[in-house]
């Protein structure tokens, strides 16, 4: 009756069996393995700080582990991401209360930031010009996302960046499908307008002289 942890492919980690409210068995390390990267990326963009993002994800996994028995089943990814996103929201609130900590935009030039190397890896054969353009674009995107209201930014991060369905995004943000649609719509329009005003390096679609 109990699914043994071997059901999961626990190749690289210690099996950590957990059971949700519906009685389904999972390996919590497998859950971590599946969602740590999207969770980290979401947190990093929400918080604008990679080391805070690591804390948010780590704490999120811990509280998820402790609350796992209350998980009723359903979309596990949305459940995990909701916990992490709530963590980030709480951290942002407490950080706002402490103005000594700077609110840098996502892509600081912090040499310790692991992001640039990770981001720049994909195409090894790209020219220096392409490379420069790519990082400019990345900067513009992050600035555009940061210019949006928090919920619209979150909706775009989930739906466009992470590829969530509207339904998953609604579960993650604890809101209705209609709310997700309107946040996505307003977020994209906001991004487009932002990129239009700052758009030297933008694809031709953004030039209004077209």
């Amino acid at each position, binding site marked *: 009756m109990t699914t043994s942890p071997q059901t999961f492919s626990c190749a690289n980690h*210690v099996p950590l069996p957990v059971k949700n409210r519906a009685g389904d068995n999972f390996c919590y390390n497998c859950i971590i393995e599946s969602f740590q*990267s999207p969770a980290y990326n979401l947190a990093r963009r929400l918080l604008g700080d990679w080391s805070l993002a690591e804390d948010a994800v780590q704490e999120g996994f811990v509280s998820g582990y402790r609350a796992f028995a*209350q998980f009723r089943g359903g979309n596990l990814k949305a459940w995990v991401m909701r916990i992490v996103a709530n963590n980030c929201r709480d951290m942002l609130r407490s950080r706002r209360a402490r103005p000594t900590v700077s609110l840098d935009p996502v892509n600081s030039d912090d040499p310790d930031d692991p992001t640039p190397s990770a981001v720049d890896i994909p195409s090894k054969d790209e020219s220096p010009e392409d490379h420069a353009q790519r990082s400019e674009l990345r900067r513009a995107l992050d600035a555009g996302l940061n210019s949006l209201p928090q919920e619209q930014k979150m909706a775009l991060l989930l739906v466009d960046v992470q590829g969530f369905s509207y339904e998953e995004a609604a579960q993650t943000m604890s809101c209705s499908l209609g709310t997700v649609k309107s946040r996505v719509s307003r977020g994209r329009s906001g991004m487009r307008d932002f990129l239009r005003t700052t758009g030297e390096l933008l694809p031709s679609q953004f030039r209004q002289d077209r």
Partner: protein
Amino acid sequence: MLHLFGRHRHLSQQVLNEYLDKRLPDFARQRAERALAACAVCNQELASLAAVTSMLRQALHATPRRSFIWTAPPPPAVRASLFLRLPNWSYAGAASLAGLVLAVMVSADAMGILSPPGQAAVGRESFMATPPSQELTVQGTPSPAGDTARSMKSADPASGSAESGQPPQPAAAAPTAPDATRAPFADVASPPSGPSGAAPPLPGAELTAVSTEGAAEVIATYDAELPGATPVFWRALEGAVAVAALGFLLALLLRRRRVRG
């Protein structure tokens, strides 16, 4: 071109986005396709939104510096005290109960019922008796002294200041008149429950005797047991109840912030 199809209203941003995400129902999708085929403005809007979307899709994902996988499960959480583990409704219930008690106390206080014991207050208290009686019973245990105190009180309005010897007597006696008008109400609210101990001669006193015996007894008991009870005592009690209500509300708010499955 456009004018051949009659008046054209540009597609809304939301429709364009839903079209882009293939979330439009068939009829709306076909309508959007017709508009897009005919209108360059709508087309360009769609293209710009599509470009934003594709840029966001290409946004690169960073790899965390370290894996979050555990070698051992985290230590169990420090369990919250029992006070924080009770179900949410118990906090809401306790908070509203405390609020209700507070409201009753404050309004009773405002009506002067809680002013120094004596005289007319008795008549008014029996009018108000039903709600506060519960909390009042907690204050003191019934005692045989109650009967005597009550009869003494019933007699008070009749016999005047000579007997009680308290300075505020004349002023406090004034409200007796309204009490008489309330007599029917008091009777409806609490029908005569039994014979009264003393048989006072005046109507005002009779009203007291006829109204809720239990309540009168409680007040009498209260007077007898806590002779030092003053407005200060009531203010302190009100403060304590208010603090309790706020405490329960605060506990409820704190709990709401926690992650729930």
